[in-house]
């Protein structure tokens, strides 16, 4: 990215040599991102991150539709976007995800017709829950509904092939695969109109105004070169995760959303008698970084909205939930270090 920054300062839309060099880097990055989605580069809209990509994709599938169907555990990038569409007059149907069990394709199908758009995540951002999006796509096709998939948490964890998936739009973000925070992409099925999220020039074929950030996109493209390796590492990561969860359960931790398939990189635990924010801080003081899953800009941690939605009758779960993230950089000795920190901290619960 540093090398790219020396070239990519130029406006990739400019005709001069510097602009053309920047354009070449941008297009190489686009190809790299397209490759991991098995998409055609021309069908990608490069964005300033995952949130923008989600907004763009949801607007594309829902334009002119009377109803939008989503779930109760979406990332705010999707949930708030759905709320906006509801405010603009559409009927919103929000499906429950009790105990982390995603709605079946049959349950989804009950709400579908040719005047419906669906916006769902592929992988939950706090629990790692995998939603059966291929089955959702078949149901949508059968009923003439359009489907947007928030794939930000799926990239690097599950193989993605937009051609066989059958969705209408899919959003991804560089940040989730080791790339920079300010880069994302939305794949949109060819032929589906995309209205830009904001007003401006005709960059990205009129779908995303503003000068593209070539340097960040180069970072995204480079990060995508490692995506296949990340996906292959999943079983090993899941094994570490299982080891961590079984040890922590002996210390009183309860795993959330363990009843349905999850990706290996996420573990969401509740520890009765702790507030999540307090546990996160206590572990941080021991050198272990975990999160409650939801943070606002003030640094204040609210109880997890995802866990609250999954366990509406067990408030202690949301209040005490912490999310542990693992990656292909995580080693068995990291797990031991984390376990020892948990042991020290959890011993302080009672005076």
């Amino acid at each position: 990215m540093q090398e790219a920054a020396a070239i990519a300062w130029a406006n990739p839309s400019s005709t001069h040599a510097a602009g053309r060099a920047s354009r070449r880097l941008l297009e190489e990055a686009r190809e790299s991102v397209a490759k991991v989605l098995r998409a055609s580069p021309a069908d990608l809209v490069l964005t300033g991150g995952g949130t923008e990509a989600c907004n763009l994709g949801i607007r594309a599938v829902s334009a002119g539709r009377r109803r939008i169907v989503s779930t109760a555990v979406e990332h705010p990038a999707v949930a708030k976007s759905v709320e906006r569409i509801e405010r603009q007059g559409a009927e919103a149907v929000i499906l429950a995800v009790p105990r982390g069990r995603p709605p079946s394709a049959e349950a989804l199908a009950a709400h579908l017709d040719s005047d419906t758009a669906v916006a769902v995540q592929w992988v939950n951002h706090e629990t790692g829950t995998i939603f059966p999006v291929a089955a959702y796509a078949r149901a949508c096709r059968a009923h003439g509904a359009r489907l947007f998939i928030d794939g930000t948490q799926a990239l690097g964890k599950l193989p993605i092939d937009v051609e066989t998936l059958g969705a209408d739009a899919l959003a991804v973000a560089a940040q989730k695969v080791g790339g920079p925070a300010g880069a994302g992409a939305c794949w949109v099925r060819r032929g589906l109109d995309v209205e830009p999220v904001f007003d401006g020039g005709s960059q990205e074929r009129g779908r995303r105004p503003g000068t593209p950030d070539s340097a960040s996109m180069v970072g995204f493209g480079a990060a995508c070169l490692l995506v296949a390796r990340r996906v292959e590492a999943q079983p090993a990561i899941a094994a570490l995760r299982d080891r961590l969860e079984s040890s922590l359960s002996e210390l009183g931790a309860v795993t959330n959303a363990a009843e349905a398939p999850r990706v290996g990189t996420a573990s969401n635990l509740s520890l009765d008698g702790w507030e999540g924010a307090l546990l996160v801080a206590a572990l941080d003081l021991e050198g272990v970084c975990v999160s409650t899953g939801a943070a606002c800009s003030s640094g204040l941690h609210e109880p997890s909205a995802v866990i609250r939605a999954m366990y509406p009758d067990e408030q202690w779960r949301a209040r005490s939930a912490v999310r542990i993230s693992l990656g292909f950089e995580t080693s068995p000795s990291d797990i031991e270090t984390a376990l020892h920190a948990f042991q020290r901290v959890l011993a302080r619960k009672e005076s």
Partner: protein
Amino acid sequence: MTEMKRVLVAMSGGVDSSVAAALLHETGHELVGVTLHLWDADGAQQVGRCCAPEDRDDARRTCEHLGIPHYVLDEREAFRKHVVDPFVADYQAGRTPIPCVSCNRTVKLTYLADVARRFDATHIATGHYARLARAGDGHLRLLRGIDDEKDQSYFLFGLPQSTLERLVFPLGELRKSEVREAGRRLGVPNASKPESQELCFVPDGRIGDFIERQGTPTTPGNMVDSRGEVLAVHEGVANFTRGQRRGLGLGGGGARYVLRILPDRAEVVVGEESELYDAQLRATDAHWIAGRPAEPFEAEVRIRYRHRGARADITPNGTGFDVRFEEPQRAITPGQAAVVYRGDEVVGGGFIA
């Protein structure tokens, strides 16, 4: 006192707690900054001081400056339940509450003691102007801060020995001017920030408006004199406190003062200043720093934060105490704290009935 290892510093975002942290940091202690999120400022109040996001930002900036960790913890639920709701109820019952006492005792320091344990911190430091000293009987004594103008011992009479054992007051031996100077010397980012005088959750000081915003209905009523003659109408008893002169809406004539508030009849009784003086009071819900005195004794009693204190005989009774002053005191106000001092030492206190 146990050996001081890791110290949790309660940081409001104000100058005092920031300097308290900087001074402890200078002496080489391992610190953890904690800011309690107690209340969401609403509307225009957000640009005020306490409880505004910018205060949390100031606390964070100070911690970043010192290179210590900083966490914001949510205590809004407890603050509403134990401080704001009783505050509103007190005003509606014609009293003038002193929420900082219950906040220190029931919310802030109790919660921070729990946080300290979970953070493996041996002590809690705050920016209060007060001092602690170990007496011959092994108990800690709570003493006034050196700076008479800033002394905050009045607000701390409710703290049990178990909490005092963990507390550290780095500013107790300093004057405010020295605190500001230390702030500048140590590069504390908010060293010249103006001081807040109002309640943290009512930064504009308009308590009547605040109570109305809490959705509690206010009942208009009459303002009467001692003989029951109606002089004016008012918008609700929560707008008044005993001894108040301004804002009565009585127009011309001599100065008149609020003598009594009768919430059941929504009446505010006004009269001459000379009628405001009483020589005794009864305090309830008492707390004694080093145990309840067995016998009546003589000491000084402060009946509000800015009261200098007056000689009195104190007789403990059940869960409270009776006070008989040598000289009658002006505007002894129900809901305020009566805090008993022997010289610099806080013996205990209670709430004026």
